[in-house]
């Protein structure tokens, strides 16, 4: 029996899924223009749908798509040049439309994917544009999908992407992997963008759903891609951090969609596979001795992930890691987290003192989680009135629906406690 040489549409779909982003990244390099490359990508796949069922799938589908896309783009420019001279000049610059094999070897194509990531996350672009452009060009999400995930109107998102592409062209942001000297700043920008995407998915800043899984999944995919292309310690650290957070996804909301605090989570529902992968990545990053804030945060998450329960967590280790993190990346939010760890190690009063210290320095007054952390410590101490006050402040500051319901639940428990005081420890 001879196999049917004619590919079915599903083969083309499969190639599209695995290759379209690579093909786009290389076409952007060859054509020097995002819009031209996107059009060429579409044309190349249209040609594949026409020709592959007739001629069979080429031996190297990726190279076929790139060469076809490039040829079609230049051909199109020449035809339009009859009406617009400037297009002719662009077409001339791009050559005769044939693609030399060395331009398509695996190494150049993988470099193109890195070039695309670094260009989309260029610090000369505004952060929200970096996110939109990365999801659009690197992940292949449609503008509508991105708009839905970020709860913004599609025209706003589209505008953002158009402006970013405009700036890339006008300011001549080059399509290149940064040099060693530029790498620290540029990598920080890429990691920050990926982390923002992850956080947007992990804890939506507003709206009814606490987790928008798709975005976290995209961020982890991006993190994996970056680690594969450029295994810098902090890239490993960020991927570890995302995996370790993601491992708790199932456990951090109840069946009714309510928030479950870390201490109350059913640890058997944590994803052990993700934890193992995350822990291995943290260890790899730590061994490099060139790690930074992402690796340290991942290390803290790893200590939690490996503890059998809240009480059996190595809180001294966590406090120690926060001390290092504060030196590397001082911020009031990290101080708050450290205060919560101190409260676990030395008791609620020690933590409370640190949080009140932050407030009296004028920090985090408008941060809901700071007030609810304070409220939790007061609640544990049996200081019902203070706990109620802080929870009320937190409630006024949060727009996140599950967070609101959690605080309201705590408030009604506390009011009941005030009416029927129970002995400490109940």
């Amino acid at each position, binding site marked *: 029996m001879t196999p049917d040489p004619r590919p079915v549409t599903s083969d083309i779909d499969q190639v599209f899924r695995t290759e379209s982003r690579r093909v786009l990244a290389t076409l952007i390099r060859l054509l020097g223009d995002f819009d031209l490359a996107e059009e060429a990508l579409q044309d190349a796949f249209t040609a594949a749908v026409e020709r592959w069922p007739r001629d069979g799938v080429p031996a190297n589908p990726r190279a076929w798509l790139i060469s076809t896309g490039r040829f079609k783009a230049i051909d199109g420019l020449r035809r339009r040049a009859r009406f617009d001279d*400037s297009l002719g000049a662009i077409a001339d610059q791009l050559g005769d439309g044939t693609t030399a094999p060395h331009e398509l070897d695996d190494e150049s194509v993988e470099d193109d994917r890195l070039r695309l990531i670094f260009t989309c996350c260029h610090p000369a672009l505004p952060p929200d544009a970096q996110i939109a452009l990365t999801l659009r060009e690197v992940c292949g999400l449609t503008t509508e999908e991105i708009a839905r995930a970020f709860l913004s109107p599609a025209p706003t998102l589209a505008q953002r992407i158009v402006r970013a592409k405009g700036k890339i062209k006008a*300011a*001549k942001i080059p399509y290149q992997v940064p040099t060693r000297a530029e790498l620290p700043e540029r990598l920080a920008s890429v990691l920050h963008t990926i982390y923002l995407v992850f956080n947007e998915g992990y804890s939506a800043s507003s709206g009814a759903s606490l987790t928008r899984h798709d975005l976290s999944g995209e961020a982890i995919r991006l993190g994996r891609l970056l680690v594969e292309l450029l295994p810098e310690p902090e890239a490993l650290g960020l991927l570890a951090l995302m995996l370790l957070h993601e491992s708790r996804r199932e456990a951090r909301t109840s069946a009714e969609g309510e928030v479950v605090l870390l201490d109350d989570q059913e640890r058997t529902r944590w994803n052990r596979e993700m934890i193992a992968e995350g822990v291995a990545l943290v260890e790899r990053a730590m061994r490099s001795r060139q790690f930074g804030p992402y690796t340290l945060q991942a290390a803290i998450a790893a200590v939690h992930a490996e503890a059998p329960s809240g009480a059996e967590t190595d809180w001294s280790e966590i406090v120690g890691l926060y001390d290092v993190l504060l030196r590397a990346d001082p911020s009031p939010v990290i101080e708050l987290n450290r205060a919560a760890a101190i409260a676990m190690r030395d008791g609620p009063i020690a933590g409370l003192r640190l949080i009140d210290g932050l407030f009296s320095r004028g920090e985090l007054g408008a941060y809901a989680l700071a007030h609810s952390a304070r409220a939790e410590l007061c609640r544990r101490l049996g200081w019902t009135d203070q706990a109620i006050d802080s929870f009320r402040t937190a409630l006024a500051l949060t727009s996140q629906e599950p967070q609101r319901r959690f605080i309201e639940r705590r408030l009604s428990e506390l009011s009941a406690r005030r009416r029927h005081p129970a002995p400490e420890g109940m």
Partner: protein
Amino acid sequence: MKYLCLIYENEREWESKSPAESEAIMGEYFTFTEDIQKNGKYVSGEALQPTPTATTVRVRNGKVSTTDGPFAETKEQLGGFYLIEAKDLNDAIQVAAKIPSARWGTVEVRPVVDFSADAAKREEATSARA
């Protein structure tokens, strides 16, 4: 491609500097300028008199209105500029990062519009009509 590097810094800080400090900074500027002249990135550059010497001009409804001071009152003021020739934005950022004031002030990098293509086209159109 040409980029204009606009140097913003707090001009008050210059007043509080000792002559030795000012001289050291000027020395750094001379070295920087020489360097970019040598590697062919320098097009031009000037230092500006402080903002009390600035005048802002607007024409509204055909009427000229002149006000004293810079366009915007900010903590940092435009103190000088370099016009440079750079391969692309990354190249321009590398040059801008070496401007001494980047360490305490701010350098804004702006790509310069290239009218040469338009000019060539206009010329062509004119000669076609002739």
